[in-house]
């Protein structure tokens, strides 16, 4: 079954059939060849119950929030302000990509939305200033993944939902690793650009007074972060509802600091529908594939496999990490979580690991999956925002950041307190 899946996936994807449709086709195949049951009869119900889901509505809300920030000009000004602060580093504007992505991650629950926001404002700059397109777009794709680590986070909401762990605690646990990961992106960019200065473009220095003035441009985004996170921690809104608070906040902030018009609204809506539909077709396809796989017994295969190895807890975690890296190449991330959490998390918790900690470790691996080909949504979003060049450039550009993520995963395994310190301290 695993062989069929791998081969089928690669073959159908390389025929350039839409990714969501490929997942459905694979599901039909599993139904036909590996299951004696008429699973097709469940197709309609699966599509209904996957999309009739209040948690997923956070996706269009967070995308819309990002669109409003872009089209009101707030995103561009945030980017310019951060550029003043970081582009003196070796790597120049690449750091502005990472810093902006980090900033937007704090208001967006979605990595795709974060990457889309930053890519839209940053891409024109790269062409203007002559940056290496690989590293530049790789940094956006990777920086965008922070959207699901730094709270708020759709994926942590889903994790909390499936494992019955506290979502606010998960959010707290993601904060420090998220910031640490952002810093490690900065460090690795500096190292690369110190070795090969040609990759990093021009380092630019701004007078300190201009840097101070630029800080004012960060006020809108900081306000928005305060409203979203504040509404959760003050008990006004659940984490899902906070996405709606974010949209309203973005509209108000855009009205005050940028400008709103009917034109801007309709553009934002259209952009939102396009990205949401793209994500949902993949999510629904993955959900159907998951349904057929579960029926055909992949959960038992996986559980028996891990249990049968008879490894120590640490070795088991390492095996699980490897499984996620491999699956992450092929499976869309939300579906990857939905497919694996019910199988993997009980094993992990049984061995005495903290489910909050594992949630954060999983998010690092999920972030990696977002930028590994062939199925890596952030790669497509960034490529979509580029006007030229090939997909493989973006893929090559993410390699240094994938290394940083691997280092982060290792650090989390060795020092779990990186994730657990904050939620425990605030108890």
């Amino acid at each position: 079954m695993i062989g069929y899946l791998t081969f089928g996936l690669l073959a159908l994807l390389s025929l350039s059939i839409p990714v969501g449709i490929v997942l459905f086709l694979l599901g039909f195949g599993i139904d036909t060849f590996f299951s004696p049951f008429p699973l097709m009869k469940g197709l309609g119900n699966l599509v209904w119950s996957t999309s009739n889901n209040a948690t997923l509505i956070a996706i269009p809300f967070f995308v819309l929030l990002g669109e409003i920030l872009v089209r009101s000009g707030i995103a561009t000004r945030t980017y310019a302000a951060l550029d003043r602060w970081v582009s003196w580093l070796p790597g120049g504007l690449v750091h502005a990509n990472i810093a902006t992505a980090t900033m937007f991650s704090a208001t967006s629950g979605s990595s795709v939305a974060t990457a889309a926001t930053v890519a839209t404002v940053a891409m024109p700059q790269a062409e203007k200033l002559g940056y290496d397109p690989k590293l530049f777009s790789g940094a956006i794709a990777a920086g965008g993944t922070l959207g699901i680590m730094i709270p708020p986070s759709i994926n942590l909401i889903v994790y909390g939902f499936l494992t019955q762990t506290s979502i606010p605690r998960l959010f707290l646990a993601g904060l420090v690793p998220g910031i640490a990961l952002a810093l490690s992106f900065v460090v690795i960019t500096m190292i690369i650009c110190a070795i090969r200065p040609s990759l990093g473009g021009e380092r630019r220095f701004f007078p300190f007074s201009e840097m101070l003035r630029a800080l004012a441009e960060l006020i809108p985004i900081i306000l928005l972060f305060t409203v979203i996170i504040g509404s959760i921690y003050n008990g006004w809104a659940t984490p899902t509802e906070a996405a709606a608070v974010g949209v309203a906040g973005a509209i108000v902030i855009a009205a005050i600091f940028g400008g709103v018009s009917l034109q801007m609204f309709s553009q934002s809506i259209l952009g939102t529908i396009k990205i949401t539909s793209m994500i949902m077709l993949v999510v629904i396809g993955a959900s159907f594939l998951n349904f057929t796989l579960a029926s055909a017994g992949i959960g038992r295969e996986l559980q028996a496999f891990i249990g049968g190895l008879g490894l120590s807890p640490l070795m088991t975690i390492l095996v699980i990490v490897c499984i996620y890296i491999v699956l992450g190449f092929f499976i869309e991330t939300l579906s990857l979580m939905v497919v694996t959490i019910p199988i993997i998390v009980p094993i992990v918790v049984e061995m005495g690991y903290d489910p909050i900690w594992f949630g954060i470790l999983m998010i690092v691996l999920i972030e990696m999956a977002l930028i590994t080909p062939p199925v890596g949504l952030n790669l497509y979003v960034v490529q979509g925002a580029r006007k030229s060049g090939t997909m493989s450039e973006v893929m090559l550009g993410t390699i240094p950041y994938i290394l940083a993520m691997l280092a982060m995963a290792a650090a989390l395994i060795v020092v779990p307190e990186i994730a657990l310190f904050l939620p425990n301290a605030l108890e």
Partner: protein
Amino acid sequence: MAEAILVRLRTANRWVALLVGVLLLACVAFVLTDIVLRQLGSSLGGTDEISGYVMAIATSWGMGYALMELGHVRIDILRSRVRARGRALFDLLAMASMAGVISLIAVRSWPVLERSLANSSRANTPLETPLALVQAPWFAGWVWFALSTWLTFLAAAWLVSRGEFERSEHAIGTFGEVDALK
């Protein structure tokens, strides 16, 4: 003829997408109202439930717009290496498989609605929403999307058969390429 169909379809889906957006904004307003009311010690109730319905309906009706905008992700490792005629064949294959799968979804969605109608099913919530009331527009969205995929496929096939590869690529290509053409 083919071009005219594509233009009409694009316009129609654009309006549909805008309406879906209005539905989402209404949902934002509804959630906010509930949050405010809760602070005042009352509640509309059912925000979770209604958000779910909105998501289902927004999803099925929004798909067509993403199709028109070439938004559904494809991987063009092989496709990008061949000439216009080859690319057109890749595109037609992708479009045909999409039309087939989406039609299947639309057909299989009917029994869901049919069962809710037959049982007069109502949601297991205090709102007791009649499920058919929300499943009917959801189902209609998939039918519309299926219709859009077939019309797009037929129009593009017509263009390809007449050797108008650039135009077919504009209709069913991948969006990196389309931007590159501009």
